């Protein structure tokens, strides 16, 4: 027997990195939202590495922030270290990464959520979805509470039929010994979901007091830290360093000798693991001639002595982990506080979803985060945000949001998932983006603030600040395009000082800025800007002028892509009725049900001839209509 526990617009199952963004976005759009989690003390818990951001992922955090999300704000308030990576390269690949304070992050995130209007937080284990006639209407918890809603979002991460494996020990569990969610997974199977088994892992944590840091290299944060959120104004001053050490021949020998005991190699693990985050035993086996691997020692927070041993993810038995650790310089006396483990879990085959993250076969049901076969907090947050926006849209009959591949890394991520699926836990990489020069860290606000504002996720104050920034950038670009710089002894002396070839002819300031050795600071000095501009405006001006040629090239490619992207496929299309399309392509098209010809062309197994025929078929409908008139 169940009891009626209440009505909502949107229910979010899970409070991980996808769940919190989903709940936040949904509530901010005005939907009455319920967030159900197994454990209210574990909101936005980081079961793996204590860091947020990095290449591609860091840009996602910026994008989430530009759309009113929480991740950027919360990490900016709680980080222990901030570093801008790839500073020696171009603007497209600059990436911010923070070392997180895990307990503080949880605390801060929980508090943020508790203060959002329209949002209810409740502890509970969902066992079953209420689905009637292909429409999801609510959920039932193990305590027999029935909650009703117009949309439901599942963000259960690695909890679904989770199984932890350490050596030959294996037991049912979510990450970090939390309860696994078994019944919900079974329920999804009953509802006809296609599930896959994935695997991921985490390294041991050791006690900081037992580490000899003198044998390691210090890795400090940036002196002038940048931040994820466009709203953050205050930097954290007392940053904490990480430390770098290396494995050695001895470590590798220990792994070799005990390989048979590794769950990965004994055949105990059936799930597919990620190639980009291999276990240490994988690294040693696959790259046997490498004499050493990097190990980063990363604090898990300010108020804890636990140190995360980055690079040593493993499913070897605990005693081997201990032996292995102790072969590493600085860790000779290290005491393990928690052992590393592998975890297997069920994931939803993501081609079952629309690009809105709604399940194709069950209206009103959305899935987001690691359950969709991704890995990483940032990937989860990006999906959670989109699912939250669209679940609320569904409930409130408001505008939905699908970001395309030229708008955001989030767009690339979701398009990849729903169009191609994935056969390993999916991680964003800069190389997955065709237009990464357009998807920069610095211009996430330029790309998305407008959308965020329109959807009610961004405050008026912030929007006005954004508009002002935009105007300043355009004005300054115009000024530099107009202003001529004439050669003079004084100028050429300045140019000589920075190693630039002297100026012979008068030059537009903008053209001078395009030279590799000239930066905005120099131009600012020699052109006397009317008033000092904010740093982010200067940055925009410099990047937009300096890389104009490449940016234009990317824009042209985007225009080309948009032509097929804007060619929509009618939702009642009957692929079986189309003669010329190859059988394999037909099956794929029927499964993926692409929304546009562009999306169809990205499905593997659908070749250009099939696309041509599809186009003809779609046009045929139009021709028929014209003829009828």
């Amino acid at each position, binding site marked *: 027997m169940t009891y009626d526990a209440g009505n909502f617009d949107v229910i979010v199952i899970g409070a991980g990195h996808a769940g919190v963004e989903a709940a936040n976005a949904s509530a901010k759009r005005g939907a009455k939202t319920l967030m159900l989690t197994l454990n209210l003390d574990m909101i936005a818990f980081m079961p793996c590495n204590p860091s947020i951001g990095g290449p591609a992922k860091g840009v996602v955090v910026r994008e989430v922030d530009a759309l009113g999300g929480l991740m950027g704000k919360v990490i900016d308030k709680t980080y222990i270290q901030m570093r801008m990576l790839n500073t020696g390269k171009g603007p497209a690949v600059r990436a911010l990464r923070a070392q997180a304070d895990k307990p503080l992050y949880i605390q801060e995130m929980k508090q943020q959520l508790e203060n959002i209007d329209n949002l209810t937080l409740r502890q509970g284990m969902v066992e079953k979805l209420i689905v009637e006639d292909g429409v999801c209407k609510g959920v039932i918890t193990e305590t027999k509470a029935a909650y009703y809603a117009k949309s439901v979002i599942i963000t259960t991460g690695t909890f679904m039929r989770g199984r932890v494996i350490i050596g030959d020990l294996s037991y049912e569990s979510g990450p970090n010994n939390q309860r696994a969610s078994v019944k919900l997974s079974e329920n999804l199977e009953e509802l006809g979901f296609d599930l896959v088994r994935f695997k991921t892992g985490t390294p041991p944590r050791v006690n900081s007091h037992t580490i000899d840091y003198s044998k390691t290299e210090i890795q400090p944060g940036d002196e002038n830290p940048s931040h994820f959120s466009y709203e953050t104004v205050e930097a954290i001053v007392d940053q904490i360093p990480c430390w770098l050490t290396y494995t050695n021949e001895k470590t590798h020998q220990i792994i070799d000798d005990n390989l048979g005991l590794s769950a990965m190699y004994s055949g105990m693990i059936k799930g597919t693991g990620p190639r980009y985050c291999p276990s240490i035993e994988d690294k040693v086996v696959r790259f046997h001639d490498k004499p050493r691997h990097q190990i980063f020692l990363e604090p898990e927070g300010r108020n804890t002595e636990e140190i995360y041993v980055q690079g040593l993810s493993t499913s070897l038995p605990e005693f081997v982990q201990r032996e292995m650790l102790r072969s590493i310089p600085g860790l000779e006396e290290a005491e393990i506080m928690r052992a590393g483990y592998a975890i297997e879990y069920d994931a939803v085959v993501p081609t079952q979803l629309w690009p809105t993250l709604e399940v194709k076969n069950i209206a009103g049901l959305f899935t987001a985060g690691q359950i969709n076969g991704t890995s990483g907090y940032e990937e989860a947050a990006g999906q959670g945000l989109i699912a939250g926006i669209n679940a609320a849209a569904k409930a409130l009959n408001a505008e939905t949001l699908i970001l395309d591949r030229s708008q955001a890394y989030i767009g690339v991520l979701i398009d990849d998932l729903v169009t191609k699926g994935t056969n390993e836990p999916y991680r964003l990489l*800069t190389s997955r983006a065709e237009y990464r020069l357009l998807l920069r860290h610095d211009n996430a606000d330029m790309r998305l603030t407008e959308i965020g504002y329109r959807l009610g996720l961004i405050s008026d104050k912030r929007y006005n600040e954004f508009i002002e920034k935009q105007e300043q950038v355009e004005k300054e670009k115009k000024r530099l395009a107009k202003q001529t710089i004439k050669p003079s002894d004084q100028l050429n002396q300045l140019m000589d000082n920075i190693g630039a070839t002297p100026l012979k002819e008068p030059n537009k300031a903008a053209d001078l800025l395009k030279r590799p050795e000239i930066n905005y600071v120099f131009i600012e000095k020699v052109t006397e800007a009317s008033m000092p501009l904010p740093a982010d405006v200067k940055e925009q001006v410099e990047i937009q002028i300096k890389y104009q040629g490449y940016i234009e090239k990317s824009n042209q490619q985007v225009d080309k892509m948009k032509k097929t992207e804007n060619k929509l496929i009618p939702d009642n299309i009957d692929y079986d009725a189309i003669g010329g399309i190859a059988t394999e392509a037909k099956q794929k098209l029927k499964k993926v049900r692409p929304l546009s010809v562009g999306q169809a062309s990205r499905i593997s197994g659908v070749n250009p001839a099939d696309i041509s025929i599809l186009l003809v*078929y779609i046009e045929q409908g139009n021709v028929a209509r014209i003829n009828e008139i």
Partner: protein
Amino acid sequence: MEKDTIAAISTPLGEGAIAIVRLSGDEAVEIANRIFHGKDLMEADSHTIHYGKIIDPTTDQFIEEVMVSVMKAPKTFTRENVVEINCHGGLASVNRLLELALQMGARLAEPGEFTKRAFLNGRIDLSQAEAVMDLIRAKTDKAMDVAIKQLDGKLSKLIHQLRQELIETVAHVEVNIDYPEYDDVEEMSHDMMLIKTKQVYQEVERLLQMAKQGKILREGISTAIIGRPNVGKSSLMNALVHENKAIVTDIPGTTRDVIEEYVNIRGVPLRLVDTAGIRDTEDIVEKIGVERSRQVLKEADLILLVVNHNESLTEEDKKLFELVRDLEVIVLINKTDLPKKIDEEKVRQLANDQPIITTALIEEKGIDQLEQAIADTFFAGELESNDLTYVSNVRHIQLLKQAMDALDEAMTGMTDGMPIDLVQIDVTRAWQLLGEIIGDTVQDSLIDQLFSQFCLGK
């Protein structure tokens, strides 16, 4: 619908005396006008035909005399602007025309695309829809088939190799980007990348040069016959044409100076050309000057230099020998039926190591030896017909050119000091373009490369 302008050769290749290059799309007339000298086509009325010359606007080189039909939308086959350029069927000039149209902004039409456009623009009846789809399918499959067949194993292997070189470089840069703290992968420098890019660039360049060689076999070896008056040039021409049935004959007309005769010499297709009147003009040097004649002769793949057995060598003969030095030449000492007055030793000296054949063309003597010499010249060594690595498909050539441009842009970027991750965009593009030749454009293979090449952690 995409409104770009497409172009293709719309007559069967090498079969008719007339070939047509067809353009369709918004810019069809403009593109044709850029290469056409005669009436301003932009001003031309619809459904009119115009005589004129095709001239390469970048080099001002004369290509062909043509008739151009201008047909404006909507009363055309595709319901778009259509231009048809009619030219004499020599494969070389038709291909050249098509290439020019592509250079001027047209895109090579996909198989069946004219028909597809006709359909999409409502020109073809609805009931034909299924037929159109079948046609596209058939044409695409056939084109794939042909393309794959034309892609000989060696070429495909070579392109795989080049792509591998590029993708390793690209993966290396990607690793630097995605795993910035990963310290045992060397940071890819501009210099390293420049070396790699240059290597591939040169290989692609070489492939394109070989494409020209391949063209020789498909389009015939352009052959010029030169010699003083009355040494027997006409007899030689007649003998070759007579002995070997001409494949295509263009009758010299009032509007054309160029005569082309195709003959098949033991499997070597010979195109006897009269470029700028070389064949008929005895006093070529005097007529157009030494430098210019040398330029003209350079364009020929083979030169048959005829001297008279019955006369001693003149200054003019020596000038001709001078003119063809370092070119592919076969020397004929003709008229052996008449008494010997020539100093053969001297001829040998002048000819360097080029083959010398003695003939009495009037009695049809020595023709066998000549034919053997021609066959030997082109089938000896690297031009062995079944051992060729050459690109012949126009689409492949286009893609190679585009890949070369992309690599060129990458190299410019590197010399300009652009950040490596930007330069790499162009390298990746070159990799994709090369992939299109062998039908492999899957983005995921980059990611596979990343993980197989490097051991990655953080």
